[in-house]
């Protein structure tokens, strides 16, 4: 699930940047430092949408650098147990398959794949339904429900299921994983 949050972060700037472009550099530094990171508290920080207030910088003794308390709006992505999410299958093995939803990695074990799906390893490894209509293989888009999340300080990992109504492959011909 996505959230639009206001967060705050201290950004340190070297004295060489103290000039007319200070604000611009500050914003750029915030984006490079924060976008694409993962916090155990809020989830993945996808994008900074707005910078509200940079405040007045404080010069640090000794180094001459200044620290700014920057308040900004950002888009965060945080998975929840029970949430239904669309992912792209990244790899398939006999124990289950892995899928990605943007920065998030999910695993679906073969216990949580419908019983009529069998693992085949000829050509590309895949879980194939008994009527051979549906193939869960790398590149396929799959809708799954999250059954568990594990959030550490820098990483989130999820376990999901496709063994429920309305879950499973939604687009077999998705672009190959790159």
């Amino acid at each position, binding site marked *: *699930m996505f*959230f*639009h*949050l*206001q*967060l705050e972060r201290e950004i340190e700037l070297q004295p060489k940047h103290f000039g007319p472009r200070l604000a611009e550099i500050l914003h750029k530094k915030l984006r490079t430092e924060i976008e694409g990171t993962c916090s*155990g*508290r*809020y989830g993945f920080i996808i994008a900074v949408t707005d910078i509200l207030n940079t405040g007045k910088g404080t010069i640090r003794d000794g180094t001459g650098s200044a620290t700014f308390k920057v308040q900004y*709006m950002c888009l965060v992505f*945080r998975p*929840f*147990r*029970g*949430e239904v999410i669309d992912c792209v299958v990244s*790899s398939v*093995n*006999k*124990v*289950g398959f*892995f899928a990605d939803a943007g920065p998030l990695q999910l*695993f679906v*074990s*073969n*216990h*949580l794949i419908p019983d009529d799906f*069998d*693992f*085949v*390893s*000829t*050509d*590309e*490894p895949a879980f194939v339904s008994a009527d051979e209509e549906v193939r869960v293989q790398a590149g396929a888009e799959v809708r799954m*429900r*999250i*059954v*568990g*999340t*594990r*959030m550490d300080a820098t990483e989130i*990992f999820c*376990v999901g*299921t496709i*063994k*429920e109504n309305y879950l499973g492959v939604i687009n077999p011909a998705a672009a190959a994983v790159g």
Partner: protein
Amino acid sequence: MLEQELADSDSEDDAINALTPAPAEASDAWDARPGRKRLRTGAVAAESCPPHPGFMHGMCIRCGAVLEDDEATGLALRYIHSGLRLSTAEAERVRQRSMRRVMDSGKLLLVLDLDHTLLNSTRLTDVCDEAGTLLDALLEREARAGAPPSLHRLAHLNLWTKLRPGVRAFLEAVARHFELHIYTHGDADYARAMAALLDPGGRLFAERVISQADSQQQHVKDLGVVLGAEAAAVIVDDTAAVWPQHAANLLLVERYIFFPACAERFGSTQRALLDEGRDEDPARGMLAAALRVLLEVHAGVFAAREGDPARDARVALAAARRRVLAGVRLCFSAVIPRGAASPQAHALWRLAEELGAQVADAPDEATTHVVSARDRTDKVLWARQHARFAVSTLWLHSCGVLWCKPDEQDFPVAEQRPLQLAPVRSEAQDLAAAMAGAGGGRGWASKPL
């Protein structure tokens, strides 16, 4: 407003509550709090947890319950995912299922070693200038020839790698009858790089590449992590000592030693192929022999009906071995010291029996071969008189290595001087050398035993 609440809240829990999706009934059912590692039986798909079948980063793969702390139970399958562990029961279930699946598709499992089996690697720094010039020339010649090269200079790994001649054709051929796995004592980067060289399309091995860190025990390879049932698996490796549990599954191959540094490591009297300026013949070499045996084993297993004890790769492998010298009755001369307590315990005697030959103490009417370490012994003279084969011990060794009966004329009994044999090395020394050579001797696996 959400933002407002978040900005105000001090405790982590408050912040998380603010993030939890709004409807109260939903948040009860799907409450997921980060940082909480309490065991919780989930509302989803909790059919029969516990016992939990396995864990991903300490989280049950079926019900999503998070363990209190990462208990190191079960079988780690790091080559599939760094955080994946399966319980013993689950591993057995997967093993049986994968055996049924593989056998149903008419295949067996094949576990291949890399170093000295499919290829030979050495560090750039271990190649002297002279050899380096030779290698550069070979590299250039192969590039001009246009065919997929067998020699590779992998600067990022600091390695020269030489693929065994005919290895690509070998893999293509066995892949039709086996599900291929790589199992090496090199590290993961090395294993992946080698898999890419052997199988540029990534079709043959997929994720089934197991490296040093994935083993349960140091210096021991185990079919457990392969998730392969023993009855359906064949192993191709050059070091028997790393498979103490699975000798019956092992097809032992002669070491492929291309680089001089590797020959030194094994202390063999045989020179490295680069020094000799030659290479294995893909049509008559070890891989061709291994392919023949593997196809034979495959045919043997699937010729047996379901439920027949012969429907077992180990049985078929032993049977193939016994067919090598079937119908041969041999006796030894100048090999086993006279008056030895139990001549049957001699390595050559055992080898001959393993290959299906009958061994007798003295030549008789039915004797077909006399295996001798010296010329002009009584038994050799007898063989010549009675038009039987008199061959050197090397002939028997060749039978053992190549799994076929080579032409006896190529192995006349040695004149006078006994065959110069390599100094006998203990199994532990041999294992240590093999470990040191794993991954091209990059040092990861070369800790002393």
